C-alpha cells in the first residue's frame, strides 16, 4: 500500500469512526435517560419505605416529552465537549505535547543527548521530505516512551521522554523516531486526534457524574439523593469509558506492528527498534507515563503508557519477535546488550550536489512517496553535515530563520538583487536587512539541493513567529518577489511553499474542504502542467512533448479527453491552481503527482532544479517526497 492508499484508507476509517461515534452517543444518551429514571424511582422507592405517610408518590415511567428533552440535552453536552476537546487539540501537535508537560527543545540544545535527538529528527524529516516537526521533551517522565501529534504534516510535533533520552543510544532513538514518523506518514495522526475528541465526549458524562458526586459529598442533607443520581451517571460514564478504551485499542494495535515494520525499513537497522523495546522491558519504569492527561492519548504513544486491562499496544515480546524471530523473551538482568554493528558499509556515491542528472533517482522515487528508506537518511545526514556553519548558526533564532528564508529568494542576477535589496530596505526592519546582507554571499553559493531542506529545517523556528510577525514575513517575501524582474517559477513556488507550511499554524480552518470532483481540478492541473513543462525545457517542441507526456497520464486517469498546452500562465493562476490541488483527495493527488512526474521525466535530462521544483509542488500538496538520491542500494 502506498502513501496515497494509506491516506485514503484513513479517510474511510474516519467516516466509520464517526458512524460508530454517533451510535455510541445515542446509546449513552439513552442510558442517561434510563439512569435518571431508575435513580428517580429508587429515591421514590426508598422514600415510600421510610416515610410512607409523607411520600406516596407513584413511580415515574417513560414520558416521551421529557425523554426527548433529556436526550437532546445529553447529546448537546457530549457534542459540545467533543468540540471543545478537538478545538483544544487543533492547536497542532505542540498543544498536545504541552498538555503533557513537554518542554520545547531548541535547535541549540544544552546537552549531548538532546543534540543527538535533534539531529535524528532533522535527518528523518529531510529524508521524508516533510518540514521538521517541533521537538518536545517530557522532562518529568522517567519511563521510555515517545509520541507524535498534529493533524497536518506542517503542524506536527514529536515528544520524547527524559527517560528515553537518557537510556537510549543513537540507533535506538532513531528507531523510536522512525516509528513515530511512520505514524505521521501513514496519516495516523489525524484520526488519532479525532478519536481523542470523540472519546472525551463519551466519557464526559462520567466526569460530570463524578463532579456531582463530589458536590453531594460535602455533607448536605439530601446528600444521598445526589449520590444516587451521581452514581447512575458514573455508571453510565464507565460504560462509555469502557467502550472508549475498546475503540482505542482496536484502532491502534494493528497500526503498531505496521509502524514498527516501517521503522525498520526506514532505518535498515532492526536493532534500533528492538533495542528500544528491550530497554523498555528492562527498565523499572518501563514505558509508563505519569502525566494526568496520558490516558486520553495513550493510543498515540510508542509503547503502553498506562497499566490497563485493555492493551493499546501489542505485548513487548511479540513486537520484538516480529522483527527478531530468535528473541527468547527473557528479561535480561543488568549490563549492556551487545549491539552488533554489522550493517555493511554502504558504498555511497560521494555527496555531490553539482551533478545534474537525476532521472534515475526520480523514477525510483515514485515508489518512495511517504516511505523513505535508509538511503534517504544517509543522504540527508550527509546534506545536514555540509550546510555551511554560517547558515547553520542562523537556523535557531527567529531573526536568523527569517533572514535565511529571505536570502533564498534573492535572484542570481546582481541587478535584480539590487532591486530586491531596495525593496527589502523599504519594508523590513534594519536588523533583518543587515542579516540578509550578511548571509547573501553564503546563500548564493550553495546548490539548489539545499533550498528545500533548509526551508524544512527552518519551519519549526518560524512557527514561533507571532501572527503580526508572520504577516510581516509574508509582506517581505511578496516584496522580494515583486522586485524581481526576472522571477523564476522556482522562487515563486519556494515562497508559496513557505507560506503554505506556516499558515496552518495561524489560520484555524475548522472543516477542511476536499475536492473529489475531477472536472473541478482539470483546468488547474493543466495550468500547472503547462508551467512545469515550460520551466524545464527550452525548445517549444520539447515543452509540447513534456506536456503531452503528463497529459497522457491525465487521460488514462480519466481527467479529460483532450488537453492543450496553456500558453501564458500568470503566477496568479499558478497560485490558484496550487491552492485547489492541495485540497484534492489522496487518489486524485496520486494521479496528479504521476502526471507531473511524467512531464519532468519526459527527457532523461532532469536537472536538480526541476527535481526540487517537483518536490516543492508536492510539498504544497502535502505529499511527502523524499530527496532524489543518485545511488540507491
Amino acid at each position, binding site marked *: 500500500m502506498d502513501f496515497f492508499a494509506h491516506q485514503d484508507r484513513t479517510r474511510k476509517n474516519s467516516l466509520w469512526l464517526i458512524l460508530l461515534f454517533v451510535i455510541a452517543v445515542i446509546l449513552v444518551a439513552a442510558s442517561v435517560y434510563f439512569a435518571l429514571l431508575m435513580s428517580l424511582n429508587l429515591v421514590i422507592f426508598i422514600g415510600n419505605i421510610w416515610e410512607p405517610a409523607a411520600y406516596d408518590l407513584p413511580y415515574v415511567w417513560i414520558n416521551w416529552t421529557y425523554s426527548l428533552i433529556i436526550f437532546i440535552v445529553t447529546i448537546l453536552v457530549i457534542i459540545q465537549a467533543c468540540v471543545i476537546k478537538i478545538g*483544544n487539540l487543533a492547536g497542532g501537535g505542540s498543544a498536545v505535547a504541552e498538555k503533557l508537560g513537554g518542554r520545547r527543545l531548541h535547535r541549540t540544545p544544552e546537552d549531548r543527548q538532546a543534540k543527538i535527538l535533534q539531529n535524528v529528527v532533522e535527518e528523518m524529516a529531510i529524508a521524508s521530505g516533510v518540514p521538521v516537526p517541533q521537538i518536545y521533551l517530557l522532562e518529568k517522565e522517567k519511563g521510555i516512551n515517545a509520541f507524535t501529534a498534529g493533524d497536518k504534516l506542517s503542524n506536527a510535533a514529536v515528544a520524547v521522554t527524559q527517560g528515553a533520552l537518557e537510556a537510549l543510544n543513537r540507533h535506538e532513538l532513531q528507531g523510536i523516531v522512525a516509528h513515530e514518523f511512520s505514524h505521521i506518514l501513514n496519516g495516523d495522526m489525524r484520526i488519532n486526534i479525532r478519536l481523542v475528541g470523540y472519546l472525551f465526549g463519551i466519557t464526559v458524562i462520567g466526569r460530570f457524574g463524578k463532579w456531582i458526586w463530589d458536590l453531594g459529598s460535602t455533607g448536605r442533607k439530601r446528600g444521598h439523593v445526589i449520590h444516587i443520581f451521581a452514581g447512575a451517571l458514573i455508571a453510565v460514564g464507565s460504560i462509555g469509558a469502557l467502550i472508549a478504551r475498546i475503540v482505542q485499542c482496536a484502532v491502534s494495535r494493528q497500526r503498531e506492528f505496521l509502524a514498527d515494520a516501517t521503522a525498520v525499513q526506514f532505518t535498515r537497522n532492526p536493532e534500533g527498534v528492538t533495542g528500544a523495546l528491550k530497554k523498555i522491558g528492562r527498565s523499572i519504569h518501563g514505558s509508563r507515563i505519569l502525566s494526568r492527561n496520558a490516558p486520553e492519548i495513550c493510543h498515540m504513544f510508542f509503547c503502553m503508557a498506562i497499566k490497563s486491562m485493555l492493551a493499546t499496544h501489542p505485548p513487548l515480546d511479540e513486537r520484538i519477535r516480529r522483527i527478531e524471530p530468535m528473541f527468547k523473551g527473557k528479561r535480561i538482568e543488568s549490563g549492556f546488550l551487545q549491539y552488533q554493528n554489522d550493517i555493511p558499509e554502504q558504498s555511497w556515491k560521494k555527496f555531490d550536489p553539482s551533478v545534474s542528472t537525476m532521472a534515475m533517482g526520480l523514477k525510483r522515487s515514485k515508489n518512495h512517496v511517504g516511505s523513505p528508506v535508509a538511503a534517504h537518511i544517509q543522504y540527508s545526514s550527509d546534506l545536514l553535515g555540509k550546510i555551511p556553519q554560517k547558515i547553520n548558526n542562523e537556523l535557531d533564532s527567529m531573526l536568523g530563520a527569517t533572514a535565511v528564508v529571505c536570502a533564498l529568494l534573492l535572484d542570481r542576477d546582481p541587478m535584480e538583487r539590487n532591486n530586491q535589496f531596495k525593496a527589502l530596505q523599504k519594508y523590513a526592519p534594519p536588523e533583518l536587512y543587515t542579516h540578509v546582507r550578511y548571509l547573501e554571499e553564503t546563500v548564493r553559493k550553495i546548490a539548489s539541493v539545499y533550498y528545500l531542506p533548509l526551508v524544512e529545517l527552518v519551519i519549526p523556528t518560524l512557527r*514561533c513567529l507571532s*501572527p503580526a*510577525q508572520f504577516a510581516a514575513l509574508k509582506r517581505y517575501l511578496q516584496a522580494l518577489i515583486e522586485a524581481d524582474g526576472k522571477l523564476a517559477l522556482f522562487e515563486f513556488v519556494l515562497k508559496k511553499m513557505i507560506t503554505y507550511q506556516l499558515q496552518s499554524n495561524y489560520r484555524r480552518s475548522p472543516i477542511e474542504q476536499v475536492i473529489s470532483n475531477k472536472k473541478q481540478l482539470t483546468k488547474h492541473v493543466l495550468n500547472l502542467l503547462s508551467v512545469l513543462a515550460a520551466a524545464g525545457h527550452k525548445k517549444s517542441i520539447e515543452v509540447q512533448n513534456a506536456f503531452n507526456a503528463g497529459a497522457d497520464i491525465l487521460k488514462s486517469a480519466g481527467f479529460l479527453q483532450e488537453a492543450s498546452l496553456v500558453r501564458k500562465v500568470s503566477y496568479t493562476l499558478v497560485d490558484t491552481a496550487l491552492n485547489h490541488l492541495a485540497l484534492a483527495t489522496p487518489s486524485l493527488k496520486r494521479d496528479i503527482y504521476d502526471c507531473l512526474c511524467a512531464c519532468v521525466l519526459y527527457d532523461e535530462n532532469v536537472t536538480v532544479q526541476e527535481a526540487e521544483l517537483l518536490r516543492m509542488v508536492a510539498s504544497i500538496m502535502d505529499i511527502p517526497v523524499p530527496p532524489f538520491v543518485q545511488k540507491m542500494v
Partner: protein
Amino acid sequence: MITFLIIAGIILIIVVVSARIYNGLVTVRNRFKNAFSQIDVQLKRRYDLIPNLVEVAKGYLKHERDTLKAVIEARNSAVAASQVASGNPGDPSAMKGLVGAEALLSNSLGRLFALTEDYPELKANENMLALQEEFSSTENRIAFARQAFNDAVTVYNISCEKFPSSIIAGMFNFKKAELLASTKTFEERKPIKASF
C-alpha cells in the same frame, strides 16, 4: 418541569462557553510563555559570549581590572535575573528585574567597548572584532524574539481585559502579564555597521 429544563439548558450553555473561554486563555498564556523561551535562548548565547570577551580583553587591558570585574558581575546578575524570568515569564517583578539587570549589563559592556577605542591593538584584534560582530547580531536576534514575546503578551492581556473573558480571567486568577521593555544598548546608540 419545563422551566427547570430550560434553566438547566441555560446553565449548560454558560458552562460550555466558559470552558471555551478558559481554554482560550490557557492557550494564549502558553503562547507567550513559549515566546519567552525564544528570548531566553538568545540571552544565554549572549551570556556565554561574555567570558570569552573578558578573556580576550584581559590580555590588553591589564590596568582596567575594575571595568572587567564590573562586566563579569553584571553578567552573573543578569544570568540570575534571566533564570528567575524564565521560571515565571510575564510576571511583572521578574520582567522588571530582567530589564534592570540587562540595562546594567549593557552599561558595563558599553564602558568596556568604549575603552577599546583607547587601545588600538585590542580594537584591531581579530577575536575582538568577531566577538563584537557576534554581540551585535545577538542583540538583533533578541530584539526580534522580544517583539514576538510582546505581541503574544499583548494578545493575552487583551483577552484578560475584554468583556466575557475578563470574568473567567478573574475567576481563575489569570493575571495580566508584563511586556519586556527594551534596554538601550550600546549597539542601539551606535549605528549598526553593515559588513558586506
